[in-house]
């Protein structure tokens, strides 16, 4: 319903995509002098990341994105990421792209759902952007592009009310409705149940601006407190320590949106222990919808702002496989277990 949701959706999904690609490219890292012609080096990795990030943060593209508009279909958005993922010399096969998109969407769905306050989705976005700036810290031009987007975010979202953020949150959740793909890193960390649903902890800090539940205060006609009663509310909450920063630089406090694939990842530590083991495993796939004419126009406008660099010279595209082996793709339920870090 909110017409200000698309930039947040695009930037956060894009951020998750970059985390995954970075992690997989590092896993394939071969020291430059030892690499064969078809193997990835650190220089290749940096180049891929630079190409994708500079395409993603292209100024004209961003300006189009930030105009108030409705969210379009999942199919249309998926096409944008297909193009973005191929904005460099890297090539992904269809199955890898599917898997990448599944991981991206489930990660951001998790982040939106677990956001303590609706406004915290902005902190999640800032976490992604902070990390992206880390990926391209050696490239001042691209860094400048990202900072410009940062400023645009602060300008557009900094002044929105809690009610407008609640609408944005609801719009995002409606977009992610019925997606229950199980992700092995989530299953391992016990933030997702085996039925694909996320664990919602009933402990930890309350959102900034919320009091710990359990108190009833009664007042007289003059506004003076006359009685105070406590009640058992059932959770184990504590006060929020401090508010995250909404400035260009600052401690975001919230860990949602930081890189969960990196080695020293900061993870939420307060989680409920039980995970239900239900008989049926729900595996959903997004049924492809035929693109409506209007969606094609929307895509054309978005793509028009995106400068896709074609691979120059005689270099072939470098293929990145997000699966360990081709055989493992066929293993159905064991697939997730087979995908080590991912």
């Amino acid at each position, binding site marked *: 319903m909110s017409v200000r949701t698309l930039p947040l959706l695009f930037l956060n999904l894009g951020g998750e995509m970059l985390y995954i690609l970075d992690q997989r490219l590092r896993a394939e890292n071969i020291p430059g002098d030892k690499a064969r012609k078809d193997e990835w080096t650190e220089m290749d990795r940096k180049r891929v990341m630079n190409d994708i990030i500079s395409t993603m943060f292209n100024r004209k593209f961003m300006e189009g994105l930030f105009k108030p508009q409705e969210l379009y279909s999942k199919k249309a958005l998926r096409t944008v990421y297909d193009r973005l993922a191929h904005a460099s010399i890297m090539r992904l096969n269809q199955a890898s792209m599917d898997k990448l998109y599944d991981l991206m969407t489930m990660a951001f769905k998790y982040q939106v759902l677990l956001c303590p306050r609706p406004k915290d989705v902005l902190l999640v976005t800032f976490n992604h952007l902070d990390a992206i700036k880390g990926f391209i810290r050696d490239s001042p031009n691209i860094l400048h592009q990202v900072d410009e987007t940062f400023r645009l975010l602060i300008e557009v979202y900094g002044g929105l*009310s809690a009610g407008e953020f609640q609408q944005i949150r609801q719009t995002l959740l409606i977009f992610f*409705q019925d997606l229950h793909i199980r992700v092995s890193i989530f299953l391992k960390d016990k933030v997702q*149940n085996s039925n694909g649903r996320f664990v919602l902890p009933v402990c930890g800090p309350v959102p900034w601006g919320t009091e710990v539940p359990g108190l009833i205060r009664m007042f007289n006609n003059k506004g003076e407190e006359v009685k105070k009663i406590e009640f058992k509310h059932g959770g184990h909450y504590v006060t929020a320590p401090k508010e995250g920063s909404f400035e260009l630089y600052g401690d975001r406090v919230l860990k949602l949106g930081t890189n969960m694939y990196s080695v020293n990842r900061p993870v939420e530590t307060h989680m409920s222990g039980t995970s239900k083991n239900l008989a049926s495993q729900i595996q959903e796939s997004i049924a492809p919808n035929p693109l409506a004419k209007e969606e094609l126009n929307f895509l054309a406008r978005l793509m028009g702002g995106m400068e896709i660099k074609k691979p120059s010279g005689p270099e072939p595209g470098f293929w990145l496989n997000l699966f360990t082996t081709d055989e493992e793709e066929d293993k159905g339920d064991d697939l997730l277990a087979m995908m080590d870090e991912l």
Partner: protein
Amino acid sequence: MVAADSEGPKEPGVRMFHRERSIPLRGSAAALCNNLSVLQLPARSLTHFGVVHGPSTQLLSADPEGVPLAQRQLQSKESTRVSPPLITQVHWCVLPFRILLVLTSNLGIQMYESDGSFMVFCHALDSGDASPAQAVFARGIAASGHFICVGTWSGRVLVFDIPAKGPNIVLSKELAGHQTPITDIASEPAQGQDCVADMVTADDSGLLCVWRSGPEFTLLTRIPGFGVPCPSVQLWQGIIAAGYGNGQLHLYEAATGTLHVQINAHARAICALDLAPEVGKLLSAAEDTFVHIWKLSRNPENGYIEVEHCHGECVTDTQVCGARFCDLSGSSFAVTGYDLAEILRFSSM
């Protein structure tokens, strides 16, 4: 399931709630507030449920054991825009001579016969003076006398005059009082001489407007917000119960707008409130997965509003989006959750 009880000595009969059989839904519930409407028909041993899925709404009826008997899906009107129509709320309006089912969406308002079989009336929203950054939609539905009041994105409340039968429904007035999107509307039958306030409207800024209803609707008082939305509001015997986005539940004296009770009730935004008016029970549900039941009363000496916590239920791993009592004594309730394709039922009977 974690449950917390604070039963007082006065309420020995209402103790533990247990899970009853769930009612399966064709589609999951959308992450909206007040996303469950219940029509109790005790004379026919039937309960009707209404849940918004997104572009469609599911209606179903069940017997006292929760066995589903009939179900129907209602789609919002066809959209000429690219974006799919999104229903924001479904609600049964009980009027003196008829019951109508009302649907609000990002296109407008549709009114059906109570079983959803036939659309009686529809009203398209006028988005004329909306800025491009404002989403246009209707939300907030309540019956007041022979009127149905529906809120809109601009803060205007549309008042429809409903005849005893037939489709001649007329938009009779628009109430001004809010500047931000309406979230919820509550009403109760006029109580008599002393209790003149019988309708409350709430909005995204947390502002509450208290009205005396028709034929002319008069704004009696305004209760300002404090920076968070008020997604859900109820009115009982001159007591306004308001649930807020920061998890707080406030009780106000409707006649004066004075705050009498402030409860730190939930750790996340409250998304639904319901009343069992015959016994003064209030139900609050929030995104923190908890449902709490409260007993409202007035101090016999000074008439001040008092409240007592009766029961807390944790609906594990479920972001609750709707909750309603299912019987007049407040001994059973139903809950919907985001992404959940079933209606969960709890009973203490």
